[in-house]
């Protein structure tokens, strides 16, 4: 892990943010991320992010659950311990549908949430660099990654001319680490890397 240099522009209105995102991208800058207080619909497309495949993962977890239920119950009731329940068939599929359904939902939900946390690197005690404290309150914070050719003054002026209320340059760690939010420790080396 190492630090990178970023230019940060803060906006207070989605209506200003969208054209700004478009202009910054057309100008050839690389948007590291836009931090928003709520899900702004269409922003992912404006930034050129691809669709998430999380729902596909959910489907796979779901059918894993169904398969687990049907294979486990049929093995138990026909092979491991065939119990005579009122003379009914050992392979009683209709009676297993409730449990098959419940396990489908359980596996899909638990699997998806864990995958979501893994992909977004979310867990208790995880800490990340926050470019602006109001990004979870009322500001839309656009963060642009600098290359060795980036003129930060020009970029800041460019962001301001596109409606940014506040701009700044920050050198920051872009990964995550284990830390406490009431303390400012940074357990990583101070080496800074610059994208080509």
């Amino acid at each position: 892990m190492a630090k990178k240099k970023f230019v940060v522009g803060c906006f207070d209105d989605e209506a200003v943010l969208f054209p700004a995102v478009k202009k910054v991208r057309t100008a050839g800058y690389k948007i590291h991320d836009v931090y928003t207080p709520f899900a702004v619909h269409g922003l992912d497309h404006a930034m050129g992010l691809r669709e998430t495949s999380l729902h596909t993962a959910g489907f796979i977890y779901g059918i894993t659950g169904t398969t687990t239920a049907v294979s486990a119950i049929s093995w138990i009731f026909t092979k491991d311990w065939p119990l005579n329940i009122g003379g009914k068939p050992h392979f009683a599929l209709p009676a297993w549908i409730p449990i098959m359904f419940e396990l489908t939902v359980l596996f899909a939900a638990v699997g998806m949430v864990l995958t979501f946390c893994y992909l977004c690197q979310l867990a208790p005690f995880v800490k990340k660099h926050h470019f602006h404290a109001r990004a979870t309150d009322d500001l839309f914070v656009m963060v642009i990654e600098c290359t060795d050719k980036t003129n930060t003054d020009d970029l800041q002026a460019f962001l301001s001319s596109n409606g940014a209320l506040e701009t700044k340059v920050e050198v920051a760690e872009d990964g995550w680490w284990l830390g406490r939010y009431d303390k400012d420790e940074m357990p990583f080396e101070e080496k800074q890397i610059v994208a080509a």
Partner: protein
Amino acid sequence: MHLKYESQLREPLVYGDKTYKQVTEDIVRPIEAKPTKLWYVGFYIAVALLMFGVYSVYREVTYGIGQWNLNKTVGWGWDITNFVWWVGIGHAGTLISAILLLFRQGWRTGVNRAAEAMTIFAVMCAGQFPIFHMGRVWMAFFVLPYPNSRGPLWVNFNSPLLWDVFAISTYFTVSLLFWYSGLIPDFATVRDRAFTKLRKRLYGIASFGWTGSTKHWQRHESLSLVLAGLSTPLVLSVHTIVSFDFATSVIPGWHTTIFPPYFVAGAIFSGFAMVQTLMIMVRKVFAMEDYVTIGHIEAMNKVIVLTGSIVGIAYLTELFMGWYSQNKYEGYTFWYSRAYLFSPYGWSYWGMMACNVLSPQIFWFRKMRRNIFVTFFMSIIVNIGMWFERFVIIVTSLYRDYLPSSWSVYYSPTIWEIGFYAGTFGLFFTCFFLFAKYFPVIAIAEIKYVLKTTGEGYKNQMTKIEDQKLEEFVHEHAHH
């Protein structure tokens, strides 16, 4: 830019001319302020009830199930009544957060967080009853299917009681995940504006390091939508399976095919009533009338009158079938044990009818739907009625079975049975008071998302758009 337009004819979901910052401030205020005296009083009453419940359960565990007045004939009494009652209440949260999300009902945003919390606490309360009803509660893990040294003796996968184990535990887990994944961004909001070290640290842990990245929001949206899609059939399945506990038996009054829809409607009915009870208190105590508006309360009252009427039709259908089947046991159960006012439990049937079917009909009147006091009073009446419903179903079907010599004497609970029930109220309200103090009771991020379409201040600006000519409108809003 995406067009945000909603007709002026729709009531705003957020009153006042609010900014995003204002929304954060309003909702986070109770977390940052010291709790009021009223909060302490309520909290201590809840804890006291919980302690009484713990003692009642201690009696039951120590001296056995004989501490309750159950007998051979009435084998299910208050315990299973309370179980079904709490599980039913636990249905509104997921209904509001999942089904109303899929139906694109904007008003869910004001109440979904608290309703989901209520769901989780209600299911926690519900779970206590079947577990302690087992008697030897230290053997409770026997209900889990795992390879064991008793054979291995597996559980009966064909039994509705086991389906219940799976349904309730899945429901609890999925509701908890759904609730918590929605809470993560809001915890981050509290964390980032925290001014005390402890709060920063604890909300830092609880927020899982959430930053608000666009990619994360995109995944979050996808996750919420799929969890909603999964929870929708789940919430229907849970009470369906609870109804199977009864419907698959051969007890008159229980083995009817209308039980699943009838139970689900009843669950939504009582769940919404509990949401009303809680939200009316929360909006008053925390001054959140701008977010949980009269419009929200009216919408929930519409659901109450609808589901209450569905339940009423189910009662009448049962009575009709009791006669039409010409089965003397069915006829006896429905027309003597239940509907005959002067039979031993006739009072409970007519109490149920009055509370669940007759009184909610006042919500056909708009004035009543929008009256806070009427709504609060009715929300409690409905939950009393729904408790009677479960009591009627369980006890009136059991106390006089096929063989008159085994008919039971009049079943009434002991103090420890009542104590256990009171204890779950204690548990529920202890959790709810803590939730109301330490958690954002309204989904902050979701309110911000709908603010510019449904906020009063923004809606007023829509007049401009409504007066525009088509060409002007297209010119301004078409994608360039």
